[in-house]
């Protein structure tokens, strides 16, 4: 029975889709069968980030409407044969989603995969509500800034009231990823620190990802940054994926600047 994890953020542009792609690939690298599903109907991006843009034939709405079978629509990744992808429709909009059809689709995905990662749309409208409806767990992606935190807080509130698991009396597991941390800015006090964010949101930390300029190029190339062994962000995603697969991995401190000799001397006199 697969584990359904929704990747949510509330605010747009914080790195949900990048996180989804990297975690999906990371889980597959841990030798688990994983499918990433793009729920951002009408604005699909995940296909590009996974480098599968030209392979999309059928999309999720066509599967739900019975126009294509699930096996026809699932696209196997070029990078790892344990990773599959289900594209969002680019022509339809959010109204194409219906609870019963989503439930049926997710149940059949559960049978075939260990991990089902759902990439939620930004915002808190019906598209978002449908994404979290049948999720067992949610990964909340935030940036260390106030508007992202508040939107995430709102999204968690909706998750806690509208998901099917909560309606059944259970609790949805919630994990936090703090994305795009700039160590220098945290130290100078311009950016919220992780402990502040954890205080505000009151959920468990899954991982921290540093700001990395390489992500833009990786997205453009369609090669998730997790494949780059020299990237700090890639390594952070690798650790996060392993933690999701049940491994106990230390959380390295990303918020202190690994400074030069001069900075260390300055630190002594602080």
């Amino acid at each position, binding site marked *: 029975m697969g584990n359904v994890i929704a990747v949510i953020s509330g605010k747009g542009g914080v790195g949900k889709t990048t996180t989804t792609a990297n975690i999906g690939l990371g889980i597959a690298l841990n030798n688990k069968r994983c499918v990433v599903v793009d729920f951002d109907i009408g604005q699909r991006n995940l296909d590009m980030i996974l480098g599968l843009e030209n392979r999309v034939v059928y999309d999720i709405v066509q599967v739900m409407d019975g126009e294509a079978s699930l096996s026809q629509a699932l696209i196997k990744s070029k990078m790892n044969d344990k990773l599959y992808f289900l594209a969002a429709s680019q022509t339809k909009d959010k109204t194409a989603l219906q609870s019963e059809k989503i439930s049926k689709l997710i149940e059949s995905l559960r049978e075939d995969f260990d991990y089902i990662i759902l990439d939620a749309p930004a915002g808190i409208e019906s598209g978002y509500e449908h994404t979290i409806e049948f999720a067992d767990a949610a990964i909340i992606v935030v940036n260390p800034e106030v508007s992202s935190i508040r939107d995430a807080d709102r999204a968690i*509130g909706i998750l806690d009231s509208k998901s099917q698991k909560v309606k059944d009396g259970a609790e949805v597991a919630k994990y936090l990823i703090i994305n795009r941390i700039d160590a220098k800015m945290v130290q100078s006090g311009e950016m919220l620190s992780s402990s502040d964010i954890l205080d505000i949101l009151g959920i468990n930390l899954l991982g921290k990802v540093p700001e990395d300029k390489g992500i833009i190029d990786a997205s453009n190339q369609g090669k998730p940054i997790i494949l780059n062994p020299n990237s700090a962000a890639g390594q952070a995603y690798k650790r996060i994926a392993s933690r999701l697969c049940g491994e106990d991995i230390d959380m390295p401190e990303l918020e202190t600047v690994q400074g030069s000799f001069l900075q260390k001397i300055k630190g002594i006199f602080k």
Partner: protein
Amino acid sequence: MRNKQYSVKVFETTLTDEDQFISFFNTNYNLFKDYLIVIHGDISQKIQEYLQEKELRFVNNIILPKSQGRKAVEEEIAVQKEQQQQVENELLKLSDRLHNNLKVQDTLVRSGQELTIDGDLLLLNRVNSGATIIANGNLIVTQLVEGSIRCFGNFMMLKASPKANIVFHDVVVDNSLLKERLNRVELKDNEIRITPVLKETTWVM
């Protein structure tokens, strides 16, 4: 002092048409000769002479005190009893509220959530930015408040919360007045008073 108490028969009338008035008293003279006549309206010379001639005793434009019948008195007593019962019920309800209507919550209140409480609330977690709490009773929040708070109770206890929007009985409370670990905000003599309850811990370096 010598006092006497009488019950007097009174005939009350309003004067509009003088001729009609005179003819009425002419025909009913025997009936009204022992009555005190109360006349509303202006009495002209003609009427005054007529009344004096007939030796009718009258007063002009006086509102008479009316004694109540037994039934009316009983009704009034019943109303009073009912009011007293209502007050007692209200008090009962209030004491009930004080003992049983305290809600304790330890989960945090997230952005977009609105918590409305009829009684008292003890909140052991944060109120995040964008969240709203409306308490019709007393309110105690032990953690940081960044959202908005409306309280209509006798008092509030709050931590120093520079980002909060606090309204106590429709009056906006200045955040800078809440300085300590826990502050009591209360209404006394129509004035909002803020007193520190728990001081901020300061560590000896």
